[in-house]
């Protein structure tokens, strides 16, 4: 009796140990599990289309800053639309393009995917955060046209920084939206892209394997992300740490598996606070989910396995949503501080330019977070009201709408102080709705600091 118990115990312990030691710490490679597959592939992981879209978003951001004030508007708009709508296969990857000391393997979008574009995957629900009562795609195209007609992507008069607006909005309207509202949502249903059939005819991966891989690709983390400290991941995205990016040590960075893109970059950015661990949380959930699928060995997933996948999906969605909220919180704080600086100096020159850039980032992330699966309802309405269609500009006017010709109307004014108050309210709202933890640029903390400066305990002294 005792002996058999001992044997069982040792068996359980060794299995547990084995399971732990074989748990993947990178996303892939994972074996082929598709029943009946007769090709040569040995790795079932594939998400080239998603990485292609990461490069399209970054390239579009670069192009948005290339306007010369009107002369090249038509040509630039056409070029930007080619990155937005396609065909994209022949297009050079403008960003990330690598640099001395950080060479990148792929030069064209086609080396990642033959048919990926942004428009086909862009959030196309109503986007009330932008003037003109448009859908998500309309808003993106409107921004593209305005960026092309601007000088350097900067519209000082109305207070817009298009490279920031376009890239941050896209990060939500494509990457976040596709991951949480499609691949980690509809495509997790039992009868959609089942695991006992190929994703598409001739594919080497099952329906569920590829759905999950694509969701991972949209997050933009390298396969070895869990081994990167937040600051290191941050430096990879900034093309500043080849050694950390180059996981296989071949001297070049493969965008498919070794690069940190937007969403993962902002997760790492929040994690540098030390108060969060969004990047490892999200990547480990992706790896955990992929292991559940791989372990099914090409069979249809059971209800229990689907349940496990949905739990991982929910972890990913919650953390990702928080990453966007943390970023919006941070930039609301930047806008508040920029206004304080402008009050001390004047609303002109470099500081006004910086203010418009920070506002573009705030606005972009506020739009991104409204592009997910959840309807944020009153939170979104309040956020849009507080941030406005545009920031308070140098003459205290701000965009209130567009006229029939598409020209921005700025027929109301607001004091700098009132707009600062709005930024405080934005931080408070985000904190209440999303439990902000990294708290970058926390201007609410000034109030806490004042309260903390007065010793609570001594106030309890009685007489």
């Amino acid at each position: 009796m005792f002996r058999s118990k001992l044997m069982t115990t040792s068996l359980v312990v060794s299995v547990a140990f084995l399971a732990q030691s074989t748990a993947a710490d990178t996303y892939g490679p994972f074996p082929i599990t598709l029943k009946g597959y007769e090709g040569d592939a040995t790795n079932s992981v594939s998400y080239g289309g998603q990485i292609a879209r990461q490069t399209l978003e970054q390239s579009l951001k670069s192009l948005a800053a290339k306007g010369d004030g009107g002369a090249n508007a038509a040509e630039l708009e056409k070029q930007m639309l080619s990155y937005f709508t396609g065909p994209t296969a022949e297009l050079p990857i403008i960003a990330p393009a690598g640099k001395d000391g950080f060479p990148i393997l792929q030069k064209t979008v086609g080396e990642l995917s033959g048919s990926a574009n942004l428009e086909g995957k862009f959030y196309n629900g109503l986007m009330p955060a932008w003037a003109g009562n448009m859908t998500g795609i309309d808003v993106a195209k409107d921004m593209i046209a305005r960026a092309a007609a601007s000088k350097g992507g900067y519209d000082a008069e109305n207070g817009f920084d298009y490279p920031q607006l376009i890239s941050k909005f896209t990060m939500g309207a494509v990457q976040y939206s596709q991951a949480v509202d499609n691949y980690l949502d509809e495509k997790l249903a039992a009868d959609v892209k089942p695991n006992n059939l190929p994703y598409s005819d001739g594919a080497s991966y099952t329906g569920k394997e590829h759905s999950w891989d694509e969701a991972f690709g949209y997050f933009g983390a390298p396969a070895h992300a869990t081994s990167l400290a937040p600051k290191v991941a941050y430096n990879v995205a900034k093309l500043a740490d080849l050694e950390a990016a180059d996981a296989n040590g071949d001297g070049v960075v493969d965008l498919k598996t070794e690069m940190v893109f937007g969403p993962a970059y902002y997760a790492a950015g929040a994690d540098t606070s030390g108060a969060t661990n969004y990047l490892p949380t999200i990547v480990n959930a992706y790896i955990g989910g992929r292991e559940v699928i791989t372990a099914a060995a090409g069979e249809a997933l059971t209800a229990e396995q689907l349940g496990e996948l949905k739990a991982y999906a929910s972890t990913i969605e919650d953390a990702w949503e928080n990453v966007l909220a943390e970023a919006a919180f941070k930039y609301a704080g930047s806008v508040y501080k920029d206004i304080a600086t402008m009050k001390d100096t004047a609303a002109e020159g470099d500081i006004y330019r910086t203010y418009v850039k920070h506002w573009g980032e705030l606005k972009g992330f506020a739009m991104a977070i409204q592009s997910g699966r959840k309807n944020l309802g009153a939170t979104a309405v309040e956020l849009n009201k507080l941030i406005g269609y545009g920031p308070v500009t140098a003459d205290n006017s701000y965009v209130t709408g567009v006229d029939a010709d598409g020209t921005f109307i700025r027929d109301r004014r607001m004091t700098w102080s009132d707009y600062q108050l709005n930024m405080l309210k934005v931080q408070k709202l985000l904190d209440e709705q999303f439990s902000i933890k990294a708290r970058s640029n926390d201007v609410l903390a000034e109030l806490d600091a004042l309260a903390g400066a007065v010793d609570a305990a001594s106030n309890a002294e009685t007489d």
Partner: protein
Amino acid sequence: MDEVNSLSALLSQLPDWGGTYLHDLSADFLNERKRIFWGYLALSAVLAVLFLFSMRGYGWRSALARVFDKRVFWSGSAKADYVIFAVNRAVSLLISPMLLTQSAVTTTVFFAMSDQSVIGFQSLAGWPSGLIIALYTLVFFLADDLSKYLIHRWMHHWPGLWAFHKVHHSAETMTPITVYRVHPVEGILYGLRGALVVGCVIGVFAFLFGAGALSLYTLLGVNVFAFFFNVAGANLRHSHINIAYWPWLERVLISPAQHQLHHSTATRHFDRNFGAMLAIWDWMFGSLHLSEPEEELTFGLKPHEASATRIADIYLRPFRDLYHMARRRLVRKS
């Protein structure tokens, strides 16, 4: 298994908790923000000796003997003070994380201000910095002192609150530690008062002037007014050294002798001098009583009201009193 884990987690925290407690216990004497900071205590002793020597005709030796009178510092009542001080530190360590924080009140008041449309955010930010800081310091001091006056007055007025406050008045001899002779329930009420006052003042000022413009004029980290109060012998309020001020000054500031009179057993002294630092509130609301330095005062309460020395009775009797009060009410109603 879970229970075992949580129990062991709790036990593993005990050394930390004990360390924090011992630290808290001694820290009050080392913290210049506290009234019983050793420096203020020493200064109070010097003031007391000087007072007895110059105003009461004591010799140096007899003045010292009077100030450090063993019959006062080692009386049964004083020993109870020391035990209560130690027990209350532990209680406060346990309950303080659960209390309303002043930062929560600050945020609430600040954003409530933003809902009104009469005066805008930072609309007084253009005022001279020195004036803002002076005003902030003064308003803080006044609001703090007035709220202490009011809550103290209510403690005497409402039987349910008096049940707890009489713990403080049961002291038959008074030492600087008697300031901590309070029931924990009273401590909580005072803590809430502090959070509300601090939160309201900061919330309103941060809205009108901007948080960045605010700081307090302080000395050794204490509001400058409270600092002078401490330096001027605040510790002697709870003592047997009856320093009195000129009558005109006793209408502005509460002297040690006036507060001792507040503790007096004489009926004509009941419900007088509720003020903490300022006497103007007592003056304004008709509860002022100038000191009577020639009068020999006795302190404490009658045994049927409260015990001066029995610790369990001191902590539990207020609840028993409340129970009896509630029962009397119910019986009367039925």
